[in-house]
């Protein structure tokens, strides 16, 4: 390793924690989010240096792009709430700031904080020492995976581990995403952006150019996943990026998607994964035991369905709420929700 790349590693390895520290210490929340996005981008450079291309793709697509976009839109919502809050009870908030006793405002319990800090640093020193002293177990599961690659039906080892050797993990993982979408839909409704917000000329062309490219890149990533770095997660994330772009540009077609179609798209991946897992059992294997010779096509089928579902789920998570049901039903839920919450009733 020529020393130039050595310096590259040293600089990258030092920038990451420094960036993390500045991120949490910066007073301005927006700047913290931007630092978080740049940390994600630098982190995927670190994954490239550590010979982990799949993780670099996922980190770039999910860690930097989508999580960053999520934080940006959450920040926007918090600002909007704070503005409305400012108009609402400006006096009450001012009064609350005054009568908060001055010393409480700085640090609530300095002693406990110092003690916790001390304990934490001792533990981390121990952890660091132990981590550096113990050697890594030789080979770990690498040779075992390499040995079974012949029967896994794919060439890329990470995809083989993800979808064949430890396919049950990925099945539960897709369920976690489905659960997150369920949770977000159960908590709020998506904010109704006014109709006339038509995207400007520049944004419209950008969307017209980028979205088809993103969809093809997503398809390419899912297809290439079986032989090189790529796969359902990365493809789904790029698909979600296309969805987020459409949501941003407030394209009319996005608003007309009926909620039942959206629910089926959300559920397509998990359902297909589950049914193919059970189908493997009916053919006489264990759960998720693909027939050896057609394992590759099973995996590709599952990957494409999962990629579509992950894309739709992550875009739905960005939208931040369940879509509008037929107006009549929603109105009732909202009206009764406000009355009930105000008087604090409810078991």
């Amino acid at each position, binding site marked *: 390793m020529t020393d130039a790349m050595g310096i590259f590693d040293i600089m990258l390895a030092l920038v990451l924690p420094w960036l993390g520290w500045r991120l949490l210490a910066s007073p301005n929340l927006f700047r913290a989010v931007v630092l978080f996005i740049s940390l994600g981008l630098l982190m995927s450079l670190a994954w490239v240096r550590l010979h982990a291309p799949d993780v670099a793709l996922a980190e770039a697509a999910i860690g930097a792009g989508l999580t960053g976009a999520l934080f940006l839109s959450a920040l926007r919502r918090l600002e909007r709430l704070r503005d409305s809050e400012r108009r609402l009870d400006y006096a009450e908030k001012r009064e609350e700031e005054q009568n908060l006793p001055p010393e409480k405002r700085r640090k609530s319990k300095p002693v406990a904080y110092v003690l916790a800090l001390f304990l934490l640093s001792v533990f981390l020193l121990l952890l660091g020492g132990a981590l550096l002293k113990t050697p890594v177990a030789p080979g770990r599961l690498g040779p075992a995976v390499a040995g079974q690659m012949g029967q896994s039906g794919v060439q890329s080892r990470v995809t083989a581990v993800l979808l064949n050797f430890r396919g049950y993990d990925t099945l539960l993982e897709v369920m976690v995403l489905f659960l997150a979408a369920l949770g977000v839909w159960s908590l709020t409704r998506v904010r109704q952006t006014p109709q006339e917000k038509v995207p400007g000329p*520049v*944004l419209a062309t950008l969307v017209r150019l980028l979205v088809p490219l993103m969809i093809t890149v997503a398809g390419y990533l899912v297809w290439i996943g079986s032989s090189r770095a790529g796969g359902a997660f990365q493809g789904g994330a790029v698909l979600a990026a296309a969805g987020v772009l459409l949501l941003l540009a407030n394209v009319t077609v996005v608003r007309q998607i009926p909620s039942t179609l959206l629910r089926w798209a959300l559920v397509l991946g998990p359902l297909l994964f589950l049914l193919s897992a059970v189908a493997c059992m009916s053919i006489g294997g264990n759960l998720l035991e693909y027939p050896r010779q057609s394992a590759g096509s099973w995996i590709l089928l599952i990957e494409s369905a999962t990629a579509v579902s992950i894309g739709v789920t992550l875009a739905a998570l960005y939208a931040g709420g369940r879509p509008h049901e037929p107006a009549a039903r929603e109105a009732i839920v909202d009206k009764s929700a406000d009355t009930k919450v105000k008087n604090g009733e409810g078991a």
Partner: protein
Amino acid sequence: MAFLHNLGTICILIGIPFFVSGTIGLLRFPDIYTRLHALTKADNVGLGFVVLGLALQAEQWNTVARLLLIWLLVLVASSASCHLVARAALRKKIQPWSRS
């Protein structure tokens, strides 16, 4: 073949200073609009040179095609977002810097 390789190396060596100047511009310029210039123009030209250099040194044609696709994509994306940021800044009534 060596001639192409050297030409590529020269292109890359030309490209790098553009990036450095883009960053210096980002740090030194007084207001948002001038920094937008520094960022989008210098970096895109720098990336153009680097892509050209790598294309010259590439073995197969599909690598060249992918490099060009990536460069065009970065061009489109950064100019569009630069425009959107500038428009948003104008709407926020940020006065452009003037030598007063």
